[in-house]
């Protein structure tokens, strides 16, 4: 399966949500260019395993991790290449180096943070770009530390750092809507202070506008927070119902739309369904 699209159409946050929820494995390539056709601009590669981010690179020769090791003075370029060759075909290079006593757990974490969190988070600011996801791509052990992060965690960090929200403008929640939690109890992701404050309002009673007033925040800030907590699956936006259907008084000519309780639970008879199906079959 391959999916291609423009980031304006389907944002990186939505892609990550899709890949995580679908437990997708494969390679996501981000092209920093306005059109999908060559000449190609800068390319970025993010590998997923079962919906988790396992590696990222901005080069296609699978030498990103080796280069990073060398830049940090952890291992010479040549030594790293030699060790990479002796590493088994299905063993992530990072884990192999740890098993050889060349890296410790902290160094591995730092490598992963630099490779994935820092690199991928920066991609959330790519405005004019294309994406391509290839589920048949093989995971590159040479680029893998052996660590992984849920896509939601990366999304949260990426959207926190995002300054230009213009491409997500039409996806931001309505200021007049409210929010409800999608998880029971506490969020399973680490929230920052202001996210926590917004989270406290997930009772479905206050509009975003009201929340913004309570927290003395600009409404767009609250909308951005709600958007990011939504794409990571913590809460959802629900339109605020200022008009309860039961008390609605419609015009007489809209009799059919009168929400009366007697009709609310009405069902349609089986003979009705049978007749309708027979009728529709003639249209096919």
């Amino acid at each position, binding site marked *: 399966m391959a999916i291609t699209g423009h980031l304006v159409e389907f944002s990186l946050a939505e892609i990550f949500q899709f890949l995580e929820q679908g*437990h997708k494995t494969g390679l996501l390539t981000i092209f920093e260019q306005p059109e999908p056709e060559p000449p190609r601009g800068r390319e970025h590669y993010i590998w997923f395993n079962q919906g988790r981010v396992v590696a990222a690179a901005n080069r296609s020769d699978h030498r990103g991790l080796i280069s990073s090791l060398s830049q940090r003075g952890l291992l010479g370029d040549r030594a790293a290449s030699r060790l990479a060759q002796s590493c088994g075909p299905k063993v992530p290079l990072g884990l192999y180096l740890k098993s050889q006593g060349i890296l410790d757990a902290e160094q591995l974490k730092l490598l992963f943070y630099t490779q994935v969190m820092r690199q991928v988070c920066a991609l959330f600011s790519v405005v004019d770009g294309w994406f391509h996801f290839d589920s048949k791509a093989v995971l590159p052990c040479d680029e893998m530390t052996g660590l992984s992060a849920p896509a939601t965690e990366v999304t949260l960090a990426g959207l926190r750092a995002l300054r230009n929200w213009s491409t997500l403008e039409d996806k931001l929640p309505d200021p007049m809507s409210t929010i409800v939690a999608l998880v029971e109890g506490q969020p399973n992701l680490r929230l920052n202070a202001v996210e926590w404050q917004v989270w406290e309002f997930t009772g479905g009673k206050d509009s975003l506008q009201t929340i913004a007033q309570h927290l003395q925040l600009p409404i767009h800030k609250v909308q951005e927070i709600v958007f990011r907590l939504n794409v990571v699956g913590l809460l959802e936006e629900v339109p605020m119902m200022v008009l309860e259907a039961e*008390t609605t008084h419609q015009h007489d000519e809209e009799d059919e739309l009168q929400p009366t309780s007697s009709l609310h639970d009405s069902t349609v008879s089986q003979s009705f369904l049978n007749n309708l199906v027979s009728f529709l079959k003639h249209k096919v």
Partner: protein
Amino acid sequence: MEIMRLVVTGPVGAGKSTFIRSVSEIDVVDTDRRATDEASLLKPKTTVAFDFGRLQFSPDMALHLYGTPGQARFDFMWDILIRRAHAYMLLVAAHRPREFHYARRILSFMQRRSRAPLIIGLTHTDQPGTWDEENILIALGFPNPDRHPPIVSVDATEAGSVAVAIMTLLQHYSQVQQRNVEQPAPHR
């Protein structure tokens, strides 16, 4: 007169009006009208619109089709429509991932307001860049391949295709009714 009310919802451009027009025996009524008193308090100048189509197939039986308003941020008319619906269909343009997020919001809204049976209708499936069913379901929040509403491809311009989609919805409605009879819900 026995009437069944089906609601056709979905993002703008998914094909709701075309869908209803394809099968309605009357000219589809685009009911542009002023908002009601309560709504006008909120938005004095709001006008809302929904499509209405009808199919009378027996002297005392008729199918009513309602298309939800096109406005992206308008919800009270949706509420009225969905609360009255026997069943509904979410139309999604399969080649327009930009709208998946909004389709998901509609779905979330509908499911909070109604327990009416739902199916998903995919339109524009012959267009370049079309996503496949499995991926659209994930994007709409149904990652589990064994737990999702029925999904059907539909050409909203073809009466035959629309008829098939409605029959799928009727079949699903019938199954849900049957299930409810066998295992009544504790409360609505």
